């Protein structure tokens, strides 16, 4: 995991209030980890605050896993 990926994982962990070591990057955050799907907004808001990226709604509704978030964030950061 690269530094930025670790950073994003830390940020997601803080928003969803689940320890980093309990987040499997491929697990469905909402179905497997019980995160409220509306918390996706707070995740993207936190990414925006940190990296100043604007993630469109169409992408927000598609996220399921930490890896999805990392992929979208990295794409926008570029």
């Amino acid at each position, binding site marked *: 995991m690269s530094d930025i990926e670790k950073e994003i994982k830390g940020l997601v962990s*803080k928003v969803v209030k689940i320890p980093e070591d309990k987040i499997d990057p491929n697990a469905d955050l909402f179905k497997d980890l019980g995160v409220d799907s509306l918390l996706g907004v707070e995740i*993207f*808001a936190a990414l925006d605050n940190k990296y100043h990226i604007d993630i469109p709604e169409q992408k927000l509704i598609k996220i399921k896993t930490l890896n999805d978030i990392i992929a979208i964030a990295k794409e926008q950061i570029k």
Partner: protein
Amino acid sequence: MGTSQDTSSHWRRLLKLDEPLPKDFEKHLAGFGSSLRPRIHGYLGKVAKRDFGLKGIGIENLPDRAPFIIASNHSSSLDFPAIYLSLPKELRKDVVVMYTSFFDRIFPIKMAIKALIDSFSVELDGNFWQALSMAARVLKYGKIVYIAPEGQRSWDGKLLPFKVGVGALSVETGIPVVPAYVKGAHEALPRGTVIPKKHPISVSFGKLIDPSSFAEKKSERPAYEVYRDFTQILRKEIVGLSR
């Protein structure tokens, strides 16, 4: 997490609250046969009284005019009709109902909905933002929206946890919520059945929950947590009405 003010702006963007309403918005909601509706509703009201002894309690808690949100427990397909028919006639005309777009594919059901009430359909599987933003726009347009915060009908009649969306909707639009509890609808028509049984139904309306004090808290805490607190208070009120 960043400042809560920033998160609130993200919610507003997703709810499309700062976008102007389309010119044909009213047309989008309107059904047909609106001149006949009061007679149809009057007839349905009589049937509801005859077969279910439908009784509205706490009508004085309802605002005199739209917009507002009505949020209730949900364990039966009769919940919304019971609430609607318990409302004073002058408020009924402002109610807009949200229904699953699945019914758009069943022509007779779609026609029945459009004939009975102003409505809009939403994809309830997956893109809940479409439902929330549409509800926000309908409220902004000055209408009354019914929401079942459990997000589904309860199988055993017990109240399920509430989804936070209703809190986001009320706090961000600034439009209050009337808590309501429907009693007896689960016994009359539980989930999984299609033929109602005669059973007394009553609808209790609670005191209005004003979101303005919650909106102030967004400067101190993440918006999601503020919406969640609002939703928990709403749930507590509905539990109180059930006793």
